[in-house]
């Protein structure tokens, strides 16, 4: 059993390596040109950051399905305030993320409603607000803000987030407490873990990182749109599962799932276009790979209800 778990741990890494080798061969090296690697990085940044936030939530055995709509509304807030003053755009996106994270976390902690129900409801509410904020259309950002979509900003930002989040997740009392909740809420409480506070904190981290993603996304596309972030929560789940995260989350959640999974999904999407796989087939290929990843990462012995 222990040997099997050991093998399971390296499956995401092997998967990533296999995808790189496969698409490198199929694209005759185009996948791993410097220019394309930059592109993959650019497309993966938002997904990896959002996945990192959700990892904190999933480590407690909860889910956050509101991410797509949060990406939309935080982007809409960023674009709206950018029209007044460009320096306001980032703080407004982050504040939106913080507010939504607090609401999600508080509802879960104090009203004991399952997280997937809360975040699903919040998803609908935020989508409605996004449509209102964008007047069912789109809000352009000032042209000069397009320059903020640069590697000089994104690389240090992503590295800093990974380092800080990894430290907190793996080496601090906070991270251990969150995972303790994931392995058993009652026992965690008896062990002195402030369960409610940890739940709120996890959603706060998830919210603020998603708010940042909203801003990054607006800067990348040049506009906030009523459709921005639609089904983004599914991309996050797919990436995390590809990265080895069990769908049920819990204490076995690993931080690296966010990074490996985000990269895998970005390479997969980019590789299929480079190979010239017809658009009709791309979704089907992703679906098959997702199914395979779920099968390989599914922990039958520790199946629990998502809280």
């Amino acid at each position, binding site marked *: 059993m222990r040997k099997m778990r050991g093998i399971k741990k*390296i499956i995401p*890494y092997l998967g*990533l*390596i296999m995808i*790189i*080798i496969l698409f*490198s*061969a199929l*694209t*005759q*090296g*185009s996948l*791993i*040109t410097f*220019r*394309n690697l930059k*592109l993959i990085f*650019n*497309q993966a940044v938002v997904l990896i950051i959002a996945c990192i936030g959700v990892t904190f939530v999933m480590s407690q055995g909860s889910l956050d399905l509101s991410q797509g709509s949060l990406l939309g509304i935080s982007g809409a807030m960023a674009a709206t305030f950018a029209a007044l003053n460009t320096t306001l755009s980032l703080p407004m996106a982050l504040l939106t993320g913080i507010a939504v994270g607090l609401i999600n976390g508080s509802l879960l902690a104090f009203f004991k409603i399952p997280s997937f129900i809360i975040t699903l409801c919040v998803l609908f509410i935020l989508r409605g607000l996004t*449509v209102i904020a*964008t*007047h*069912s*259309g*789109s*809000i*352009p950002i000032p*042209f000069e803000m*397009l320059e903020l979509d640069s590697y000089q900003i994104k690389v240090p930002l992503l590295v800093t987030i990974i380092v800080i989040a990894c430290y907190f997740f793996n080496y601090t009392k906070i991270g251990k407490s969150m995972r303790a909740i994931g392995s058993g809420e009652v026992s965690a409480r008896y062990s002195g873990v402030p369960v409610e506070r940890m739940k709120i904190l996890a959603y706060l981290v998830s919210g603020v990182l998603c708010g940042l993603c909203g801003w990054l*996304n607006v800067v*990348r*596309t*040049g*506009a906030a*749109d*009523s*459709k*921005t*972030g*639609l089904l983004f929560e599914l991309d996050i789940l797919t990436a995390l599962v590809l990265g080895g995260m069990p769908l049920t989350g819990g204490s076995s959640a690993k931080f690296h799932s966010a990074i490996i999974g985000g990269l895998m999904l970005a390479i997969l*999407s*980019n590789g299929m*276009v*480079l190979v*010239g796989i*017809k*658009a*009709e087939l*791309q979704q089907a290929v992703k679906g098959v790979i997702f199914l395979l990843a779920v099968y390989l990462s599914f922990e039958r012995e520790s199946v629990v209800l998502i809280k």
Partner: protein
Amino acid sequence: MKTKKVLSIVLSLVFAFVLFGAHMLFAEKEEERPYLIGVSIWADSGPLSKKVISNLRYAADVLGAEVEVAVDGFKPDNQVSNIENLIARGCDAVMICNCTDAVVPKFVKLADESKVPLALYFRKINDPEIKAYAESSPYFIGNVHEDEVAVGYSLGKALAAKGCKNAVIINYNKGDTTAENRYVGYKKAFAETGINLLGEQWDILDAEKAANTAERFIAAFPEIDAIAVGGGGGGPLSGTIRAVKNHNKVGQIHITASDFGPDIENSLKNQEVAAMSGGHWTDPFFTFILLYNYVDGHPLSDKVETITMQPIYLTSVSDAQDYTKWCMDEPPYNEEEIKNMTVKHNKGFTLSDLRRIAAAFSLEDVMERHK
């Protein structure tokens, strides 16, 4: 713990080897290849998008080029990713039906950075600032679009000719210039002819949503006698027809639509549709011709160019039969005509010629050329 560390070092080394070693192994050798034009499209299903793709593939085949299609679902982030991916794929030029004016500056920036020509199809840039920004780019070639205000206006008039008094509009994305211009045209016609606009619903891009919306309108406004479908590639029209049929209101509620549905002839024969505009899937074909000439080293202009054309209007069964025979069963431009639209095969071909061909496009034009 020690095993873990060793394992992570080994995996990191393997990863580094894969990344750099694979590049050495699989590096592409320079070789002659056909021109590759990247196309980002909202969907690959639905009558309009399917016809756009097949017509572009046909034209590319005739000219010995290739098209690479990527689906964007009309979402800004997907559209940006598609442009990036198509450029990375090695496309010599890219074309897109932008979901909103607001994303155009980003496309232009990507085109400039990669020195890859970009053109828009089906779209006019309404925002003057964005238009000026795009036109300042050396790699933004231009756009092809229909006079969408005229489209909405003509179809609005067709509803008035049927005696309609109370209408609703089902349209797709707000912020989309085509949808908004058609809406303006409809409103103008309604105002002139005294038709009351009882309600409007936006963001409808598929049959299911259109059917539900139409049913809600029928329930809310019993006096409704007209539904104007703003577009959306044919799917919303199918859904609206279904809703009207379900309520046994065929002949009482008249439908007009842009973008032909899947069964034009029967829709007109059974009086399910009063008038339709469509057949403008040749619009991306003209964008393709602009780009093909550019990448072939014979740009048709050194400025940003806008080409306008008119869609085909169908109001009778015989029109629909002719359209199916002359435009659907056979391509509206044959091999010789397509080749003659390129400087490579026709040295004297100019932008004015392309403008003239696009402006002349109609059912009568196709029939006259191919009879």
